[in-house]
């Protein structure tokens, strides 16, 4: 957002070909081509680079307020015809600042364009207002709308990967519609560590409803100076999103259209044994399992289950404005099939942003998104694919599903799955702005976030048979129907008064306000069994059709289970911020927010969140004038306290349990009973984070080279954690009470270096960013005794593989350390070992050296938190071509290959079993082959280096020549090809080294996630 100049032209919009949309486009073009007018003026001129004074070819020239324009020829000359009343030309060129020139009364002009440098008068969006970039004291990362299109995905945050230092985005699953885990500056709590999102002023927990094409800019607020204005919600960072508007477009409307279609495929498969190899290993484990290993079938389950799948994204928007206001209307459609059948996501977005200027002082408006969506969720086939024995055939000769022992036939799982989510989300606000006495701006905004979601899951009765015709374990005796309807409704009313004033050498930018919010959610669910017909028309929990076949009776009461639950909480906040700048050199920001939340008991429901920050624009000092080369230099520091109120606040209430539990009378009869349940903790409060930040911004050579570096240190205390309490409180064995009793520290350095330049006709920018994370638990409960450890990362077999303890990172991996293989009996006898260990098995280290090997010898064997997260981005423009490359990676984290550990039955193996121990000296790392048991106890054998480097995106675009565009009356017309996740360099053997989790104590454990796909797509975008 730039208040000093009118809206810069969007330099890039993306999309793609589709015959239908092309046809539509053609129609619109022809209709607009008819407009002609009378009085005309012809202007000619030349455009130069302000620095080199060389002429610039290919510069776009637009007649302001129209869709008409031209571009400069190879000599930098242009010629354009103005209609009556048209006076302003807008010059834009990639890599240069956009310039508007008033040509009233002129016929010939010379124009000089300046290379883009982050101008210091540029305005930066901050919470509840805008501040001049020069006056910013906080650490704020910014992503422009162009960068948001680099990844084809439902969720915009996927595009932030590797784009902002200090922000780690990790996919939790590759399933269509799956949200990513977003962590800003490490992991600050054991609980919900996600940031909040503020879309046009409405505070939200996720932005899956947003179409990236509707976004103007995103700012990531990282330090306390930036986030303290969000008080008890700012501790995990804040993502500000501004959506597009029609402001700055005067006259004829601007139409933008973009379309993109692509295909997705699995990026890489896991190297598993084939049928023959499996048979050989099976014979080794139990001789005679397969008589002829050359005759066994070979089924590549991965090939059967993972398919290529289409993805498409289209958008059409119309925006415009006048003195009376402006509008932005868009329709978007996103559709993604998963690479596993029966998973998909489909979303329509309708965006309406309007403002109406009632008079010179008062403006009203709205920002509104309506997003209906539909999601299909596939069963967890990944796990079954990994486990299924390769010598079993997917189908019998008669075409029915073949049995897959122990795991079930994944193809049958998919076939019989009908799991769907659909709904509509509506997010938006209406607002009124009033300017009072020129310096004050009063704004009142009423925002709403409402959604209705319906989940439906139907599984028909089915049986997969064994070869002998008996029923296998994979069957469902009675069909099941499950329904859940949930409704969420939040409103947020915010009133702020801003004051911006400059006088003499002083500048003040202040805001104060009052905010109220209510959040309500409710769901109702029902389930039934044995639906009368399998068809979709009967997927209802309808009493007359829920039949108990065995007894021939209607059995609704026995077969339906209803649950109804609701939640709601309210919040009132007072907020204020003053930014004071003296002589453009010294800046101080004071921020304060008081939040009152119904989540907490009366005595401690108010929380107070202050922040102070200073910045010094050293480049404005006199002594800097003599230092050439440094074009910008700023140091800043901030301190503040912010909170995290996304906690399980119901734990504050002491509940009452009710059940049929007392058995009395003769004969023994169960009676209803009720009593106090688990004790709540009325003293529960939000978690509070104290954050310190020191940063420096520096620009060299007219800001061709810019650098930003920050040191951050944030300590979250009062983290909610469940603790055991003394028995005499009467909560019963194993019951815990929630306390604000843990503390975690995150500290590190983040940097962002950017170089941009032009070489002849090529403009380019290179950007390297990264951050280090040092995460350390400072306190857990009492720090000693039975609650000094937070156990997490439970696998399907009940084993837990993470421990969070003081002095270690959150969710550190825990298990046995291995030290080779027992090569012979003498070696086995000589070392302490578990009773199950034999020759050829792993040798676990007696860590505590007590001569006995037991659970006490398990130790810390890795951390899921990377030491360093980085991104590398290259943008290049040459003539009509543009290339954009985004690399992203992390270093120093470990992955626990959990899917390889849980083996209660004979499953397929990863290829490494081939290097197994088969006799003394054959291997000292891969133990003898076994189906499960001892060698699969959680140990460092399953710890893998999680470092990776991924080519996240590569885009090659071609802008149609100006001559063609002007003939077609197009302002912008670009074709492109794009690839996401083209390759990943990693030592990890799974589908992806990116193993995220919403739970911070179960992070980095690969339990068989839905693979993240490679996407290759083509697109076209245009505007006129």
């Amino acid at each position, binding site marked *: 957002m730039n208040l000093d100049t009118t809206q810069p032209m969007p330099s890039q919009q993306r999309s793609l070909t589709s015959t239908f949309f092309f046809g539509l486009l053609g129609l619109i073009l022809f209709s607009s081509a008819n407009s002609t007018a009378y009085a005309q003026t012809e202007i000619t001129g030349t455009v130069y680079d302000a620095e080199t004074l060389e002429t610039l070819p290919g510069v776009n020239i637009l007649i302001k307020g129209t869709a008409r324009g031209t571009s400069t020829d190879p000599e930098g000359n242009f010629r354009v015809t103005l209609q009556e009343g048209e006076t302003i030309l807008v010059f834009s060129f990639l890599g240069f600042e956009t310039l508007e020139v008033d040509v009233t009364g002129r016929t010939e002009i010379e124009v000089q364009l300046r290379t883009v440098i982050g101008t210091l008068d540029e305005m930066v969006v901050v919470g509840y207002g805008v501040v001049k970039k020069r006056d910013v004291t906080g650490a704020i990362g910014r992503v422009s709308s162009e960068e948001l299109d680099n990844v084809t995905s439902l969720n915009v945050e996927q595009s932030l990967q590797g784009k902002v230092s200090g922000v780690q985005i990790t996919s939790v699953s590759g399933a269509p519609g799956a949200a990513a885990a977003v962590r800003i500056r490490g992991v600050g709590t054991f609980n919900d560590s996600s940031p909040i999102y503020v879309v046009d002023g409405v505070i939200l927990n996720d932005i899956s409803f947003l179409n990236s094409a509707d976004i103007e800019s995103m700012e990531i607020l990282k330090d306390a100076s930036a986030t303290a204005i969000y008080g008890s919600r700012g501790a995990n960072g804040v993502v500000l999103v501004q959506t597009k508007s029609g402001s700055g477009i005067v006259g004829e409307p601007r139409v933008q259209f973009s379309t993109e279609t692509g295909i997705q495929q699995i990026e890489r498969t896991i190297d598993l044994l084939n049928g023959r190899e499996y048979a050989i290993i099976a014979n080794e484990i139990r001789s005679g399992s397969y008589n002829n290993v050359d005759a066994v079938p070979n089924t590549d389950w991965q090939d059967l289950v993972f398919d290529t799948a289409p993805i498409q994204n289209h958008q059409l928007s119309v925006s415009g404005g006048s003195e009376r206001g402006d509008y932005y209307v868009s329709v978007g459609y996103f559709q993604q099939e998963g690479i596993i059948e029966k998973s998909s996501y489909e979303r329509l977005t309708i965006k309406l942003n309007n403002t109406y200027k009632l008079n010179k002082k008062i403006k009203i408006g709205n920002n509104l998104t309506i997003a209906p969506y539909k999601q299909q969720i596939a069963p967890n086939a990944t796990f079954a694919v990994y486990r299924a024995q390769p010598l079993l055939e997917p189908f019998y000769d008669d075409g029915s599903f073949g049995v897959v022992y122990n795991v079930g036939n994944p193809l049958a799982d998919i076939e019989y799955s009908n799991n769907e989510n659909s709904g509509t989300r509506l997010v938006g606000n209406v607002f009124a702005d009033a300017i009072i006495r020129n310096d004050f701006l009063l704004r009142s905004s009423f925002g709403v976030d409402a959604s209705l979601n319906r989940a439906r899951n139907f599984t028909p009765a089915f049986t997969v048979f064994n070869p002998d015709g008996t029923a296998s374990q994979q069957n469902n005796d009675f069909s099941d129907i499950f329904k859940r309807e949930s409704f969420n409704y939040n409103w947020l009313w915010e009133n702020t*008064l801003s004051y911006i004033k400059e006088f003499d050498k002083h500048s003040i930018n202040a805001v104060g306000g009052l905010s109220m919010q209510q959040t309500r959610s409710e769901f109702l669910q029902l389930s039934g069994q044995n639906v009368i017909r399998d068809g979709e028309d009967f997927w209802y929990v309808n009493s007359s059709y829920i039949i108990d076949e065995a007894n021939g009776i209607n059995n609704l009461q026995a077969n339906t289970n209803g649950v109804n639950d609701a939640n709601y909480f309210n919040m009132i906040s007072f907020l204020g911020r003053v930014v004071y700048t003296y002589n453009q050199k010294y800046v101080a920001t004071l921020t304060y927010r008081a939040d009152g939340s*119904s989540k907490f008991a009366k005595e401690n*429901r108010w929380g107070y969140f202050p922040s102070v920050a200073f910045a010094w624009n050293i480049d404005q000092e006199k002594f800097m004038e003599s230092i050439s080369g440094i074009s910008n230099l700023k140091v800043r520091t901030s301190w503040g306290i912010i909170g995290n109120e996304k906690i399980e606040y119901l734990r504050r209430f002491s509940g*009452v349990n009710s059940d049929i*539990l007392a*058995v009395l009378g003769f004969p023994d009869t169960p009676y209803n009973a009720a*009593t*106090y349940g688990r004790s709540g903790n009325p003293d529960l409060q939000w978690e509070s984070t104290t954050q310190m930040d020191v940063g420096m911004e520096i620009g060299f050579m007219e800001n061709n080279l810019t650098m930003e570096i920050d040191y951050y240190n944030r300590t979250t205390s009062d983290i909610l954690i469940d603790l055991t309490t003394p*028995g005499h409180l009467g909560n019963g064995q194993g019951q815990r009470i929630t306390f604000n009793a843990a503390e975690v520290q995150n500290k590190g350095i983040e940097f962002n270096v950017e170089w941009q330049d032009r070489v002849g006709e090529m403009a380019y920018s290179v950007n390297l960013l990264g951050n280090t994370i040092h995460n350390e638990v400072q306190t857990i409960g009492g720090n000693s005794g039975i609650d000094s450890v937070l156990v997490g990362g439970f696998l399907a077999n009940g084993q837990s593989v993470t421990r969070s303890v003081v002095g270690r990172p959150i969710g550190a991996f825990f298990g046995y350390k291995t030290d080779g293989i027992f090569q012979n009996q003498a070696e086995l006898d000589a070392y302490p070992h578990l009773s199950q260990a034999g020759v050829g098995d792993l040798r676990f280290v007696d860590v505590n050296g007590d001569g006995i090997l037991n659970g006490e010898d398990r130790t810390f064997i890795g951390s899921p938190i990377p030491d360093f997260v980085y991104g590398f981005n290259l943008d290049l423009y040459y003539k009509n071509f543009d290339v954009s490359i985004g690399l992203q990676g992390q270093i120093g984290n470990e992955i626990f290959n959990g899917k390889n550990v849980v083996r209660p039955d004979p499953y397929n193996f990863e290829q490494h079993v081939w290097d197994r121990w088969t006799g003394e000296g054959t291997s000292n790392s891969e133990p003898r082959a076994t189906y499960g048991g001892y060698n699969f106890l959680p140990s460092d054998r399953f710890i893998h280096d999680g470092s990776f480097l991924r080519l996240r995106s590569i885009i090659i675009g071609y802008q149609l020549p100006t001559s063609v565009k002007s003939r077609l009356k197009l302002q912008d017309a670009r074709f492109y090809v794009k690839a996401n996740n083209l390759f990943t360099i990693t030592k990890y053997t799974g589908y992806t080294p990116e193993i995220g989790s919403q739970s911070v104590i179960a992070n980095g454990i690969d339990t068989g996630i839905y693979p993240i796909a490679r996407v290759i797509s083509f697109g076209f975008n245009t505007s006129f």
Partner: protein
Amino acid sequence: MKRFFSVLFLTAIFLGCEGFLDVNPQGELTQESFPVSASDALLATNWVYSTLRVWNYHTGGFPFLEFLSDDGAKGSNPNDGVDQAPYDNFTHATTQDGLDRWWNTLYLGIRRANVVIENVPLIQMDEDLRARYVAEAKFLRASFYFDLVRGFGGVPIVTTTNPPIKLARATSQEVYELIETDLLDAIDVLPVKSAYATEDIGRATKGGAQALLAKVYLFQNDFENAEDYALAVITSNEYDLESNFYHANGPEGEQGVESVFEIGAAADRTAGNQYANTQGVRGTPNRGWGFNRPTIDLRNAFEDGDPREQATIIELGDVIDDITILGDGPTPDVTMDEEGNVIEIESYNRKVWYPGNNTNTQFGHNRRLIRYADVLLMAAEALNENDQPGQALVYLNLVRERARQGDPGILPDITETDKDLLRDIIIQERRVELAMEGHRFWDLVRTGKAPEVLGPLGFIEGKHELLPVPQSEIDLSQGSLEQNPMW
């Protein structure tokens, strides 16, 4: 300008910050609003009883009091429940499995009783019923504290639903005083057993409270009071012995004439009691886990021909309800020591047998906490101590007579009147009559016979009379709980 500020401010005040921030949880009852009605009072009282069916209520799930005695061994498969094995030879530690579960669950019951005792008196309802609910809760609270004081000695006393987090141990004397007060209050109010309607049978009775109080006095060697309350039960004419000894613990005698207080349980997992499943026959038929194995010593304790031996021990090959007991494959049928002496025989507790051939039905056993035979023997013991051996023998012989089952050739009447000898005879009679029912270890400790009888098994005088306070509780108390002597 001022106008705008005041508008802003007035809005805030108008909407009432505090009122806006008072939000109750939805669809969920909180403790501030329960119990407040007559039906709440009944629900709350009922839930105190359900504590008795919590698996951990039974000494943390495993009958380790029997393992500690000379009657029962850990049993089950040698590889199962290894954490319980140390109780068999007194090598159990402060961190031993089960201690914390038992401690926590007894206090869980106390809290549930406190919910009633603290809140029900404030409810507007039928006064008699209200008083009865409170008295039922006091009876149960007394029984929970009695387990605590017998097991651990003086423990923190909690008589409110909101005790402080740090609480020191009271003396055992103080705990006993609370138990006596509760039981005396209960005796005043509770109806006799026959006054309850069929659907309420199983609730605490006057007789139950008197019997428990007699036992409480016996544990303090207050034989006069023990005599009074035991005799009060006997003279109430509310109870008698089952004619068939099997019925005393079996399904036929559930809530029957001999039952003074028992735990109702239905033959399924939700409304059943896992107490019996834990001890049920392991293997074939598959009724349970097979813990609490009768010892060779217990077998030898029965007089020749005493039918109670067969009614106490299930042997392999027995046929019960047409089901042949084959037992567990991996469990050795007979275990011998190095010298070839038989030290253990695969066998099971007959007293928890419940008809059926699966695990679910085994949950239907109603554990008898106090039965009339126990009261008769308590009376006999107290009378003997109070120098009335003649009267003592009457009650002792009533028990032997029933055990005899009409066979005049066995279990002759006792005629001994020497106080010391008769005491031993009564304790011996308690052992065989009440075997495997959880009384033996306490009887040995309270009569001072434990060092002599259990010494060979590892019992150390001055230490093993009490269990250690669970180490987890010591840790959590951050110094406010002291460990028992010698632990």
